[in-house]
């Protein structure tokens, strides 16, 4: 286990980061000009890292598969970003944000990393405001906040339902400033296909120009992967169509350990699947749970009538509705964490209370919020005896101002007006807490190879709290990596430019070309999507919201079989030497077919329930928590870090024991 050194600095929790920054090595400004850094991925983590590293003086090359860095999928984050500013004076602090995050992650994250995240969170807001990010404000001109799941304070900053967009455009603008200065060279429509290691260190990448098909070599003194999560292993998810695990997986194949692959966040509030043609799922922000109440009919016959179209939800009186989150979790109600809310929805639907034609949907109802806000506005505006419709109009305007774009999006997709009839929602794959294993410095097990944002595993444990992904991406990119990477690069000031004319680059390029040729030479029985959809079904049915040993064992063998079929029979039309989206997809699905198996193996090994990972074999048997997830700290208080050994089934497990010095491990209760 000696390889897994998390490099957590010694000393008291609150001083670790400051002490670490004070003692690590720096690179002087003149030397930074001689050092190159590659950043793959230009979302919140990659964009912010690239901008900051360039600003410090390093020569940065960025890579993204999209046509512009601005299109990275961070842009789709809706609800907000957490920061321990305590502007509301409601008792927030760095410690409380730290505590909520560790508890929310079901005690499966590293204390020191999470504390650092909380510590730099306030800086992010200052930074973004200085960049001109237009956060929502109150009438007094100060920043507004709202609440997210799993916490009892209002610490979430937001820009309507487009917080991710505004933050990403902020990072993109910081990148643009550096591109204009010549410090960042952007390679858009490029996909990284391999990491090149020289003497054990990451010294460059092989990338494919997606327009010309040309395979290119790029060298650097360090490589940063900020390539997002792997939710698309499920085919249907809230991720973008192009989101993939390829960069991370190819790094894994070159020696970077992959941590906790089974920790996946299934988000409770997404628009339900409508048919077989479905290509992706759309999230309805968790912020809606501030005002929306989740329910299903209390009686099965009502649920059946609704499914058959004979009954409308608005016709059901209050006493015939089961607000099951408020019933089961009175302390947190509709704002329980995502994993808890998702399982509760599945439980009701499995029991026969689901409400759309597939039986897999629950209601998210704004009627009482509209009424409450309407009455409040009537009072503010001094209306005497307002009519019901006046109250409705006033309340609707408030809700529209808060969530207008989400309601519009819902209406366009579902063709129903959510102001008039409750939204229908169902859980969907959204975020992956697992990712490349990194130490405190965000370095993977390959020297000089770093991972930031969703691509790493470090801060969210087994479940991520809402509005914490944006926080982590920007914390890693703006405030953590620029320090820690300097410590590593300080040893490289005499190295000089890395040549791409070396046997290591030759070999990596050859491997990439061979793999492409293999993909192009299948018998052509089925399209890439055919395999991707099949994989998605296995993952959703056997590695989804609820998992058991039998299902996981089946998943492992089914995925291995599917992978063999894929390599023999996949059909990739066109040529590798020009723009070819099917070839791009084929490479990504090939990697998902390996990751999926490791995912199932990891889930099988972890015979406990924690966070988003729910094992049917591990539930509370009695007492107040009966039926809730049962964690097993005695046997599973560790990070699973998998080492690549060829086939996923041969992957070797390394354990990083999690040490809790500042937080007492407790049963996570939201009752």
């Amino acid at each position, binding site marked *: 286990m000696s390889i897994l050194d998390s490099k957590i600095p010694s000393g008291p929790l609150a001083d670790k980061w400051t002490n670490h920054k004070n003692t690590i090595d720096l690179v002087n400004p003149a030397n930074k000009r001689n050092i190159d850094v590659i950043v793959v991925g230009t979302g919140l983590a990659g964009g*912010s890292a690239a901008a*900051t590293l360039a*600003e410090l003086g390093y020569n940065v090359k960025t890579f993204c598969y*999209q*046509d*512009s860095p*601005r*299109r990275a*999928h961070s*842009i*789709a984050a809706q609800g907000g970003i957490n920061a321990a500013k305590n*502007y509301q004076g409601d008792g927030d602090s760095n410690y409380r944000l730290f505590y909520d995050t560790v508890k929310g992650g079901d005690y499966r994250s590293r204390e020191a990393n999470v504390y650092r995240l909380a510590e*730099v969170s306030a*800086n992010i*807001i*200052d*930074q*973004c*405001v*200085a*960049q*001109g990010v*237009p*956060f*929502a*404000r109150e009438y007094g*001109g*100060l920043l507004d906040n709202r609440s997210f799941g799993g916490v009892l304070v209002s610490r979430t900053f937001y*820009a*309507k339902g*487009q917080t991710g967009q*505004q933050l990403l*455009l902020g990072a*993109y*603008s*910081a990148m643009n*400033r550096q591109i204009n200065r010549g410090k960042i060279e952007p390679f*858009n429509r490029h996909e990284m296909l391999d990491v090149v290691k020289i003497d054990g260190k990451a010294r460059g990448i092989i990338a494919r120009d997606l327009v010309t098909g040309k395979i290119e070599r790029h060298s650097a003194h360090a490589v940063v992967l900020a390539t997002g999560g792997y939710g698309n292993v499920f085919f249907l998810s809230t991720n*973008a*169509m192009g989101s993939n695990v390829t960069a991370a997986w190819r790094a894994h194949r070159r020696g970077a350990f992959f941590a906790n692959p089974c920790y996946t966040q299934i988000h409770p509030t997404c628009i339900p699947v*409508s*048919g077989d*043609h*479905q*290509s*992706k799922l*759309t999230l309805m922000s968790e912020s809606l749970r501030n005002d929306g109440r989740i329910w299903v009919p209390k009686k099965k016959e009502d649920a059946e009538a609704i499914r058959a179209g004979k009954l409308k939800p608005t016709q059901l009186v209050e006493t015939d509705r089961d607000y099951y989150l408020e019933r089961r979790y009175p302390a947190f109600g509709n704002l329980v964490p995502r994993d808890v809310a998702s399982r509760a929805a599945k439980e009701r639907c499995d029991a026969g209370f689901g409400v759309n034609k597939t039986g897999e949907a629950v209601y998210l109802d704004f009627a009482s919020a509209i009424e409450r806000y309407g009455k409040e506005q009537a009072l503010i505006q001094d209306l005497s005896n307002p009519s019901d419709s006046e109250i409705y109009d006033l309340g609707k305007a408030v809700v529209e101002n808060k969530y207008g774009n989400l309601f519009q*999006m819902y209406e*366009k*997709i579902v*063709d129903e007006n959510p102001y008039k009839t409750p939204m229908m929602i169902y859980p969907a794959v959204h975020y992956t807490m697992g990712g490349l294993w990194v130490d405190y410095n965000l370095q993977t097990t390959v020297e000089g190879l770093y991972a930031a944002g969703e691509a790493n595993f470090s801060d969210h444990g087994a479940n991520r709290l809402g509005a914490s992904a944006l926080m982590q991406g920007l914390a890693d990119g*703006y405030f953590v990596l620029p320090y820690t990477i300097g410590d590593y690069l300080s040893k490289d000031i005499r190295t000089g430019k890395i040549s791409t004319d070396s046997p290591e680059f030759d070999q990596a390029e050859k491997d990439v070309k061979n793999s492409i040729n293999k993909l192009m030479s299948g018998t*052509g029985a089925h*399209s890439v*999507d055919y395999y991707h959809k099949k994989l998605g079904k296995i993952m959703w049915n056997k590695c989804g919201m609820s998992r058991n040993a039998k299902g996981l064992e089946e998943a492992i063998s089914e995925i291995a079989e599917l992978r063999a079929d894929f390599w023999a029979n996949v*059909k990739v*039309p*066109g040529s590798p030497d*020009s723009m070819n989206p*099917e070839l791009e997809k084929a490479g990504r699905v090939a990697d998902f077919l390996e990751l999926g198996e490791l995912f199932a193996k990891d889930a099988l090994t972890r015979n406990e329930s924690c966070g988003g990972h729910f094992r049917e074999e591990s539930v509370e048997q009695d007492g107040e928590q009966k039926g809730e997830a049962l964690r097993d700290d005695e046997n599973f208080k560790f990070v699973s870090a998998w080492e690549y050994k060829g086939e996923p089934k041969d992957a070797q497990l390394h354990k990083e024991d999690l040490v809790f010095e500042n937080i007492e491990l407790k049963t996570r209760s939201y009752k």
Partner: protein
Amino acid sequence: MKLTLKIWRQENASAKGNMQTYPIDGVEGDMSFLEMLDVLNEQLINKGEEPVVFDHDCREGICGSCSLQINGEPHGPDRLVTTCQLHMRKFNDGDTIVIEPFRAKAFPVIKDLMVDRGAFDRIQQAGGYVSVNTSGNTIDANAIPVEKELADEAFNAATCIGCGACVAACKNASAMLFTSAKVSQYALLPQGRVEATTRVLNMVEQMDKEGFGNCTNTGACEVECPKGISLENIARMNREYLSASLKG
């Protein structure tokens, strides 16, 4: 429903393109426009033909990747949606749908329906930022209160997704709506005011250099913009530009 698709096919930037006709059956109203094209592509692949290439990614109307001129309108007949959020229920059985790339000199075709919108990035690089370092060593976020109305207006301008529909809608292929949205976001906020003069001059210069046409106030861009970016931004940019030119 059954549809006839007439789609622009073009091998690469230098090749000559043409319209090709594809019948398609079994289209459902709940499908998005791009899911309908997925079905077509699956059929083409199974027939051994090359699928139609188009840009797309998030499929929830926010990344700005998807484009398509559908029956002569950017993002098709519905209002305030991108192509990925346009649903087939907006069409009728038996319809013929003409699908072309966004057309503009500054947006050269890469392949089929995919165009190069790099010009937009270069306009942003010319000045679409506040020159503040990302070290985090700045003033407290609440140190400068911003009037809610201005903050909201800046936000509205900032919701531009950079898809290029404004350019495709304009008979002059002007990029004024796109450029003015960024200029406005910063002009409205105290953090952006400091560099307002150089920003507007540089961004407009780059816009002209890229070969976009001039604005003649027809307003087609505002009508077709999937995010409802207002023409007021163009008026504001013109004011900013005039006052910057007088200063300069």
